C-alpha cells in the first residue's frame, strides 16, 4: 500500500525530471501521459484496499482512504487526458511561434510538478503537509498561467499568485491555531494528524477551534474558487493554456475543496455541525450568485467555462453543508463528472482559440459546419454541464437537492435552483452561438491533431459512461461519505 501511495506522488515527479533533462519531445511527453495513467492505476488499486478504513504511511504523514482514492481517480483521469492533449496543443503553439522549445520544456516540467503536488495534497494525513502541497500547486501553476507571456497573462499570473498565496496563508494561520487547540486537548506533537485531531476533537477548545475553522474555510475556499476570494479564478483559467485550464478547473478546485472536507469532519465533532454548515451555505450560495451574475452576458468562452466551474463549486459547497451520506455521495460524483466534462470543454476551447486566435464568443461561430468532432465535443460537454439526463451531473444534482431537503435546508434550494436556471439559459445561449450560425465567408474547416481528438473522444466516452452507471464508484463514494461523517 505504501508503495502505491508513494508511486502516485513520484511517478509524475520522475516524468517531470525526464522532461527537464531531455526537453519536450514525443517520448518524454508520452512519459508524462504514462505517469498520469500510473496515478489512475494507483487510484484503482488503492480504492480496492480501503474498504475497511484508512491506511497510514510515511510516519503517518500520508493516508489512503476512500476520499483520497476518489480524488486520485479524478487527478489520474483528467491528468491523462490533459497531458495527452498537451502534445497536440504544444505542437500548434510551437508551430505558430507562441512558445519556444524552452517554453515547452518548462510547461512539461511544471505540469508534472503540479500533478505531483496534487497527489501529495489528497493523500496528506498531516494538515501541515496538506497545506504545503496546496501552496506548492500555486507555485507550480504560476508560470503555467503566464505561459503565453502576454500582458494579459502577466496580469492574471500576478493576481493568481498574490490572491491564492494570501488565501492559503490564511489557511495556514487556521492550521496553526488548530494545532494549538489540539495540543491543549492532549494530542501532543502529532496534533496536526487528522486521526489524532479526530480522536481529540470533542476536547478541542471551542473558541480557538471556531477561529481556526473560519480561517481554514476562508483560506482553502480561496483556492477552491469560493467567494469572497474568487476573483483570481476567471483571469487565471482564461489565460492558462487550455489543458492546464482543464486541470485547474476540473481537478485543482476539487482538490482544494477536499481539504475543506477533511477539516470539516474534525470541526463537526468539535463544534457540532452548525458552524461549518453555516459557513459553507453562505459561501456556496454567494459563489453561485456571483458566478451566475458574471455568466449572464459573458463574452469570453474560457471565462464562461471558468465561471461555470465556480458555480459548480458553489453547488458542491452547499451539498457539503447538507452533510448527509446521500449529499456527500452526490458531491463526489459531481466532482468526478464535472472534472471530466470540463476537461472536454476546455480542450475544445483551446482548439477553437487556436483556430480563431481569440476566445471571444462572437468571433467563434458555425463550429458545427466546420468541425464535426469539436461540435460533438462541445455539445456533449455542454449538455453534461447543463446537468441534463442521462449525464451524471443530473443524478448528482437531484441527489444534492434531496440531501438538502433531508437536512431541513430546503429553503436553500429555492435560491440555488433559481440562479442555476439563469446560468443554464446563459450557457445554452453561448453554446448555440458558437455551434450554429452561418460560417463566415472563407471560413475554413478546423483541423484537430490526433492526440487532441483522441483525448476528446475518450473524455466524451467517459462522460457518457459515467452517465449510464457510476458502477463500482458508488461503493467507493459511500465509503468516503461514511468516513466524512455523513449522516443517514
Amino acid at each position, binding site marked *: 500500500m505504501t508503495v502505491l501511495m508513494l508511486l502516485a506522488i513520484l511517478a509524475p515527479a520522475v516524468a517531470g525530471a525526464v522532461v527537464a533533462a531531455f526537453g519536450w519531445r514525443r517520448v518524454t511527453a508520452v512519459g508524462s501521459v504514462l505517469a498520469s495513467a500510473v496515478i489512475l492505476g494507483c487510484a484503482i488499486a488503492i480504492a480496492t484496499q480501503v474498504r475497511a478504513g484508512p491506511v497510514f504511511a510515511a510516519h503517518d*504523514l500520508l493516508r489512503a482512504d476512500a476520499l483520497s482514492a476518489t480524488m486520485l481517480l479524478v487527478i489520474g483521469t483528467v491528468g491523462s487526458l490533459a497531458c495527452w492533449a498537451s502534445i497536440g496543443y504544444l505542437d500548434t503553439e510551437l508551430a505558430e511561434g507562441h512558445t519556444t522549445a524552452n517554453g515547452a520544456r518548462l510547461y512539461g516540467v511544471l505540469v508534472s510538478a503540479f500533478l505531483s503536488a496534487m497527489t501529495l495534497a489528497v493523500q496528506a494525513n*498531516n494538515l*501541515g*503537509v496538506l*497545506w*504545503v502541497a496546496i*501552496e*506548492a500547486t*500555486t*507555485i507550480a501553476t*504560476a*508560470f503555467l498561467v*503566464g505561459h503565453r*507571456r502576454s*500582458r*494579459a497573462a*502577466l*496580469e*492574471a*499570473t*500576478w*493576481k493568481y*499568485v*498574490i490572491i491564492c*498565496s*494570501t488565501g492559503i*496563508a490564511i489557511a*495556514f*494561520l487556521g*492550521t*496553526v*491555531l488548530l*494545532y*494549538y*487547540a489540539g*495540543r*491543549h486537548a492532549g494530542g501532543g*506533537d502529532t496534533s*496536526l494528524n487528522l486521526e489524532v485531531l479526530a480522536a481529540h476533537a470533542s476536547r478541542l*477548545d471551542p*473558541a*480557538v477551534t*471556531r*477561529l481556526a475553522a473560519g480561517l481554514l474555510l476562508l483560506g482553502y475556499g480561496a483556492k477552491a474558487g469560493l467567494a469572497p476570494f474568487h476573483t483570481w479564478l*476567471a*483571469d487565471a483559467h*482564461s*489565460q492558462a493554456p487550455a489543458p492546464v485550464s482543464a486541470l485547474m478547473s476540473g481537478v485543482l478546485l476539487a482538490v482544494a475543496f477536499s481539504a475543506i472536507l477533511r477539516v470539516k469532519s474534525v470541526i463537526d465533532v468539535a463544534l457540532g455541525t452548525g458552524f461549518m454548515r453555516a459557513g459553507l451555505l453562505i459561501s456556496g450560495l454567494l459563489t453561485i450568485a456571483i458566478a451566475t451574475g*458574471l455568466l449572464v*452576458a*459573458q*463574452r469570453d468562452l474560457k*471565462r464562461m467555462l471558468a465561471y461555470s466551474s465556480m458555480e459548480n463549486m458553489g453547488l458542491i459547497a452547499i451539498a457539503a453543508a447538507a452533510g448527509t451520506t446521500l449529499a456527500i455521495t452526490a458531491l463526489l460524483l459531481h466532482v468526478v463528472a464535472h472534472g471530466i466534462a470540463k476537461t472536454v470543454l476546455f480542450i475544445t476551447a483551446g482548439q477553437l482559440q487556436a483556430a480563431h486566435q481569440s476566445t471571444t464568443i462572437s468571433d467563434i461561430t458555425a463550429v458545427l459546419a466546420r468541425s464535426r468532432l469539436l461540435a460533438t465535443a462541445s455539445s456533449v460537454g455542454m449538455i453534461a454541464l447543463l446537468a441534463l439526463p442521462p449525464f451524471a451531473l443530473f443524478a448528482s444534482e437531484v441527489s444534492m437537492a434531496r440531501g438538502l431537503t433531508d437536512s431541513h435546508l430546503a429553503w436553500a434550494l429555492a435560491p440555488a435552483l433559481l440562479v442555476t436556471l439563469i446560468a443554464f439559459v446563459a450557457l445554452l445561449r453561448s453554446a448555440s452561438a458558437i455551434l450554429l450560425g452561418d460560417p463566415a465567408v472563407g471560413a475554413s474547416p478546423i483541423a484537430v491533431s490526433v492526440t487532441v481528438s483522441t483525448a476528446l473522444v475518450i473524455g466524451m466516452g467517459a462522460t457518457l459512461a459515467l452517465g449510464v452507471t457510476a458502477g463500482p464508484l458508488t461503493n467507493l463514494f459511500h465509503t468516503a461519505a461514511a468516513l466524512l461523517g455523513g449522516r443517514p
Partner: protein
Amino acid sequence: MTYANTLDLATGAFLLTGVLIIWRRELTSLVMLLGWQGAALAAIPITEGIRQEDIALIGVGVGVAALKAVVLPMLLTRAIGSAAVDRRESTPLLSTTASLLTAGALVMIAFAVSRPVTELASTPATRAVPAAIAVVLLGMFVMVSRRLAVSQAVGFLMLDNGIAATAFLTTAGVPLVVELGASLDLMFAVLILGVLTGRLRREFGDTDLDQLRELRDR
C-alpha cells in the same frame, strides 16, 4: 534579562517594524524594515529554545533568521533593481496619517480577535499573540493600500511573518517537516514574485499595479 522580558522585547520590535513599514514609502527602507522584522521573528524561537534547552528549536530560529532577515530581503532588493523608476510609493491610496490611524485600529482589532488564544493558556508567550495577529492584519493592509509590486510582496511577507510568529508563540512552531516545506514554498513564491516584477517593468515600463486592468468581464 529574564525570559519574559526578552520575549516581550522581541515581539515589541516585531510589531514596531510592522508599524514603521506602514509609515515609510521608500521601497528600500520597506525591505530593510522587513529584514529587521525577520530578525525579531527569529529571536522568538531562539528565546524559547534557550529556555527549554531545545537545540532543534534554536536551529529553527537560526534558519528563520537566515531566510527572513537575509535571503528574502536580498531577493526583494534584487527585484527593486537599479531602475530609476518606482523607488518609492509616490501616489499612495491613503495619506500617511490615515494609514497610521488605520494601523492603530487594526492593532486593537488584533487584541480583540486573539482573546480566545490567550484565554486557552495564559503564558508570557500566548499573551504576546495579539502582536503577531496585528502584524498579519498590517500585512494585509499594506497589500491593499500600496500600488507598487514590491510593496505588495512586502505586505505578503509581513502577513507570513505574523503567522510564523503566531506559530512560535502558541506551539513553539509547527513540526519540522512542515516548517521546512512551508519555508521552501515561501522562498519559491518570493522568487516568482521577483521574476514577475521584472516582467511587469519590461511590459509596462513600471510596476504600478493599477495598470493591471485589462482582464475584465465586460
